[in-house]
């Protein structure tokens, strides 16, 4: 491997990692955009999502890497798992919003944010106490397709991560910009009171936002599992924190910002680890964050929506 090959390989690694962060970052940024709440429960909705995906795949008859599918059955199984995981994770997000957060709407201060931390710990401990602390062999039906051997290697699993992430982001973008509900979300983000006066059902908008954000976290959980063939009760923390950083880096509340922010964090992680030492990863990521915020306090892309002045 020449040095150039290594850099290209690390870009492939970084973009794949970044795609997972982007999907997660979208959930943070959408909720913040609508109700200015940092939703820490999101960390572990992602983790629960990866377990939901694992159980769906196992229910479809997959076990570890023993069953390999190709062609239509492969696409079918992955589509069922993706849709099922997103629906159930989205429902979990709605449940959290209805039971723990809606009663706190309008309460000033940090009560709602602290509640999300509490919900996050509840999810974490439920999984720990019921499923256990073991590492799990996440089922993966994808054949081992590799392009290149000695130099740069591109694998099917990386292509899958990119394709799924791009499709979901395009759909989300379309939904927010061109549907009635999407426009209602934009209106609510700009000014909740005015939107309410114009007949927007704010509660419903908030619920849809939680559903979409959590469904994307579930999708991230599925592709995380397929990418690493692994899941565990503790995966939410590191990935969640990096994704949150990505959302802030891109400008929290800004949807394209979250997408780009995720990929940037992924690239910083892989290229920073390559050029310096891997044990310094967190130092590098958070230094970049601090530098960006010092010079551009609203993040790289800022908030598109106008906040109350």
């Amino acid at each position, binding site marked *: *491997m020449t*040095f150039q090959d290594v850099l290209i390989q690390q870009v492939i690694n970084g973009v794949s990692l970044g795609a997972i962060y982007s999907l997660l970052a979208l959930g943070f940024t959408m909720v913040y955009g609508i109700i200015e709440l940092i939703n820490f429960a999101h960390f572990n909705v992602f983790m629960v999502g990866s377990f939901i995906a694992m159980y769906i795949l196992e229910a479809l008859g997959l076990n570890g890497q023993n069953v390999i599918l190709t062609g239509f059955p492969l696409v079918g199984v992955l589509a069922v798992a993706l849709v099922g995981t997103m629906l159930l994770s989205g429902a979990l997000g709605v449940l959290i919003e209805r039971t723990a957060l809606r009663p706190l709407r309008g309460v000033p201060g940090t009560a709602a944010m602290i509640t999300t931390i509490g919900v996050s710990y509840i999810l974490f401990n439920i999984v720990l106490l019921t499923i*256990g*602390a073991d590492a799990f062999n996440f089922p993966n039906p994808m054949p081992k397709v590799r392009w290149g051997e000695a130099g740069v290697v591109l694998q099917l699993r990386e292509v899958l991560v990119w394709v799924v992430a791009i499709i979901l982001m395009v759909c989300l973008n379309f939904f927010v910009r061109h549907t009635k509900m999407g426009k209602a979300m934009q209106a609510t983000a700009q000014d909740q009171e005015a939107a309410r006066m114009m007949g927007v059902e704010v509660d419903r908008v908030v619920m849809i936002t939680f559903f979409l954000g959590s469904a994307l976290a579930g999708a991230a959980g599925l592709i995380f599992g397929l990418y*690493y063939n692994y899941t565990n009760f503790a995966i939410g923390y590191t990935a969640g924190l990096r994704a949150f950083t990505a959302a802030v880096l891109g400008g929290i509340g800004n949807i394209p910002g979250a997408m780009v922010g995720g990929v940037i964090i992924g690239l910083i992680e892989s290229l920073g680890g*390559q050029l310096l030492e*891997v044990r310094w*990863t967190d130092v590098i990521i958070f230094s970049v964050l601090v530098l960006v915020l010092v010079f551009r306090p609203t993040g790289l892309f800022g908030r598109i929506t106008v906040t109350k002045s």
Partner: protein
Amino acid sequence: MTSIRRRMLLATALGAGISLAIAAGGGLVPAQAAEKSVTIGIDLPLTGADAEGATRIKYGAEMAIDEANAKGGVAGYKLDMMTLNDATASAGQYDPAQAATNAKKFVSDPHVVAAVGPEMSGAGKAMSPILSAGNLAIITPASTNPDITDPKFAGQYRPAGKAIYFRTVTTDAFQGPNMANYMRDTLKMKSVYILDDSGAYGVGIANAYEGQAKKIGVKVLGHDQLNPKEADYTTSLTKIKALNPDAVYYGGVAGAGVKFVKQSYDVMPKTIKAGGDGVFGPEYLSAVGFPAAEGLYATNASPHVTEDPAAQAWVKRYSEKYKVQPDDYAITAYDAALVIIDAIKRVAESGKPVNHDNVRDAIQTAKVKTLQGEVSFDENGDINSRVVSVFQIKHDPKYKDDDIIHQYKYIGVAPQSPAS
């Protein structure tokens, strides 16, 4: 706040427990009744993550004690057991605080003359100072961290001076370096990249390995740390792949190890991957799975006895009695109990009182024929034979995928000195 309060609560509870135990112990005068008996303590993480291995170890020790009792006891003494669990539900595995409590229970009971355990070095570090103060010997069949018996740390782990932490396995001071010798001589490794999991065991064994690798002329291309909380190691592994080492040595336990083995199979399937007894466990079979786990090298800090023709009668007795296959740490536990039984016998026959002081002194001078060969200890409590066994995962579809006895194949001894 809450964590401080919880700790205070725990400390109070612990304190109450100890004073109760002392009160109970104080009331007992060693009874010289018609049937004389002494107690051997057993401390292991019998629930939680390591329960499977710990139970095999427990059976090994129990078997030696049961067999001695079946022969009519030892020099007129019947042997009782006090089996304590050092795992807690909140830790999910061994808990040093519980291990310390158990050590106090052993020390405060005058019938306990010696103990077998613990399995984990973290528990051993917590127990050792308490046992030292009580001058009660314990023989570990599995914990390999060298610090506990290292004279450099005597002030910390045996403040009273005498060795009380004995081992029927060798330590990571040999487990890492011997594997470096094996990999150079037998696997023809010329260059290696070293990783550890930033834990005490992992850093210790990786550093010992690195020192020896450099000494015998293996090119060490780098030494980096994996964060067990991190999910993605592809950056590290891509970097390592670009350096093209013959082998990667991983010092650490399953937390980071499972992800390391899985992901390195994707990034560099042909590179040799090896580790210590931290990569010897069911997680590497169940959570890593095949084919990713195939070919992984692991070591044990003891001779491989369960397939030794001379031990087959014993293996048969064990598996018939307990309905599980023994592993090598079941053998070292059996050996540890044999050493204690021999010490009790020598003390009794010499006419001295059979108590923990005299039994400790007798263990120190032991020369006992056991399943693994003759066991004797140096002045720090470490076993004089320093055998490290090498295993490799080779999938055998005849057995269940997570059957550690059959999926890890024994392939030889890692030599203490290199070939040239």
